[in-house]
């Protein structure tokens, strides 16, 4: 377990599989291991690297018969995207939408997951299935009816419409996962809290949530990513540049003819950076969070 605060009182926790004292690997095995991982890293990185390299080229050289690593490398494309397009506004909108999706998504999935983990209420088992089924109906077909509902709620062209829609995408999985995570937190802690005078909500908020940080980190990462680069809902619900998010905004660089490869590649890099940063801070918790969620899921 990556988070030591949980490890001791949980009782049921297995001993972490920390590096065991092992025989040293043979040099050959070592080379094979690092070689394989190095190759995997190469595969994982090179499409990203290729986009980054492309973003440094002038527009006409990005899609070209002659494939070269560098053509007049410069940051002109970035300057252009950041100063002469609505990119900064989309970026801000995406940040707002992703942040609120994250907060609301975490709140919803953590409380639903907690209820499913702790309370044996009528309808609990059905709910697990309902969550699964919501993942099965294709989003592409849901967009029109959801638009109509949003229109009836007067939410078209608002960031709220996106936040709500993204929550429907992310919350079922996150609730499932959080439930698994809560299952690993001893129930006695809740009982102790109940005896100490906390109600169910306060117990959840003051005792259980602080212990569920790794699970929350995964949920945060997942909800953030769901909202950050989403395209389909954003295209459908947002009507003005004022509220456009990155995924939808970037489509403006791909008009019917004459795609703006320069703006598009630079935009793609810029859109990936914050996601990578969020991921970088969350990754420490990712393994522990998914463990619990998955094991009991």
């Amino acid at each position, binding site marked *: 377990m990556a988070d*030591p605060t949980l490890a*001791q*009182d949980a009782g049921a926790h297995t001993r972490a599989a920390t590096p065991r004292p092992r025989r040293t690997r043979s040099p050959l095995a070592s080379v094979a291991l690092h070689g394989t991982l190095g190759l995997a890293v190469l595969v994982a990185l090179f499409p990203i690297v290729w986009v980054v390299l492309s973003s440094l080229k002038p527009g006409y050289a990005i899609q070209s018969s002659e494939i070269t690593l560098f053509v007049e490398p410069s940051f002109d494309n970035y300057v252009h995207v950041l100063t002469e397009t609505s990119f900064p506004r989309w970026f801000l909108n995406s940040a707002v939408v992703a942040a609120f999706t994250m907060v609301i998504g975490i709140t919803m999935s953590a409380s639903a997951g907690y209820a499913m983990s702790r309370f044996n209420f009528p309808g609990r088992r059905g709910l697990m299935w309902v969550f699964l089924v919501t993942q099965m109906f294709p989003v592409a077909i849901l967009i029109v009816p959801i638009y109509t509902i949003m229109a009836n709620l007067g939410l078209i062209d608002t960031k709220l419409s996106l936040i709500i829609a993204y929550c429907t995408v992310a919350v079922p999985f996150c609730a499932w996962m959080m439930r698994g995570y809560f299952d690993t937190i001893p129930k*006695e802690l809740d009982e102790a809290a109940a005896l*100490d*005078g906390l109600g169910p909500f*306060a117990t959840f908020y003051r*005792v259980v949530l602080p212990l569920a940080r790794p699970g929350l980190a995964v949920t945060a990462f997942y909800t953030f990513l769901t909202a950050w680069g989403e395209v389909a809902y954003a295209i459908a619900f947002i009507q003005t540049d004022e509220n456009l998010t990155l995924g939808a905004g970037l489509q403006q660089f791909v008009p019917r003819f004459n795609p703006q490869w320069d703006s598009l590649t630079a935009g793609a890099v810029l859109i990936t950076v914050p996601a990578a940063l969020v991921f970088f801070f969350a990754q420490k918790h990712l393994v522990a969070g998914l463990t619990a969620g998955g094991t009991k899921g």
Partner: protein
Amino acid sequence: MSTSTSSSVTFSGATRIYPGSDRPAVDALDLHIEAGEFLVLVGPSGCGKSTSLRMLAGLEEVDAGQILIGDRDVTHLRPKDRDIAMVFQNYALYPHMTVAENMGFALKIAGVDKATVRKQVEEAAAILDLADYLDRKPKALSGGQRQRVAMGRAIVRQPSVFCMDEPLSNLDAKLRVSTRTQIASLQRRLGTTTVYVTHDQVEAMTMGDRVAVLKDGLLQQVDTPLGLYEKPANAFVAGFIGSPAMNLGTFSVVDGHARIGDGLVPLPRSTVEAVGAAGQVQVGFRPEALLPASEGDPGSFAVQALVVEELGSDAFLYGDLVGDDLRADHVVVRLPPRGVPQKGETVWFTVEPGGLHAFDVETGAALPTH
């Protein structure tokens, strides 16, 4: 530390049936615990002792019957409104809080001002010898220290009832014995009504003012430790209480005697009358209730020694009844440490006067023996 107002506890027909189960986990429990009393709930696992405790704490629904603390009906009150504190088997300390925060949490929730909380925590810590650890997180403590923090958390609140659910089971054997006495003496000092759950009958006997024995959700007997030991209400209690356990067996009754192996042990008249036409009786005698005898002594029977354990202060002989091939149970006999029989030897014993217990074969209920 000021003493708290301690309350009596009354279970009145309290019943718990888990969803999806036909059989009650606790079946119409009637039990009255006096204010200030230390009552131990004991029984094998699955007997409903923990469930009973959790019903009292409000952690478990009560499906029928009532629970009173003092005169208050708390049957459907929330745990926090019952004025009780609980020590959990795994202590359930909040990992993200320091020892002091753990102990003072309930007071903080209740809105007690910080200075008072700190004062009371420090008082409790002094009693439990935890003063040096107040700012540590639970993970930095040893098992015994954690156990004391859990105790401290309970006593800081000065509740009218303590609930303790096997609080010693995570300690090693030696620590368990010393903590056992600490808890008992602490309880006596505080005078707080305590309901203590354990599966260990030694703990039950050494700690409780009274002990309640449960089996299959049914209360078997409530009495002082000595009362249980000397006057078990049924064969289950007789077999459960005492170490080594009472020798129990079913024997046929012949002319007012029980045929035990080759021997005929006389039964009191009242017992014989109670057995009546059944012709069989369940007889029990504790290991220390057997007296060495010689072959042919009236009421004696023979035991062939299989193993002899010499403990220094005592010796225990484990053997088979001679002349009763059908019985597989061993007989246990406590002997003085000197001059013990050899393995394989056949030894004769009689039951000391008043050392014989008799139980109904069908119901297990105690039969009169005087």
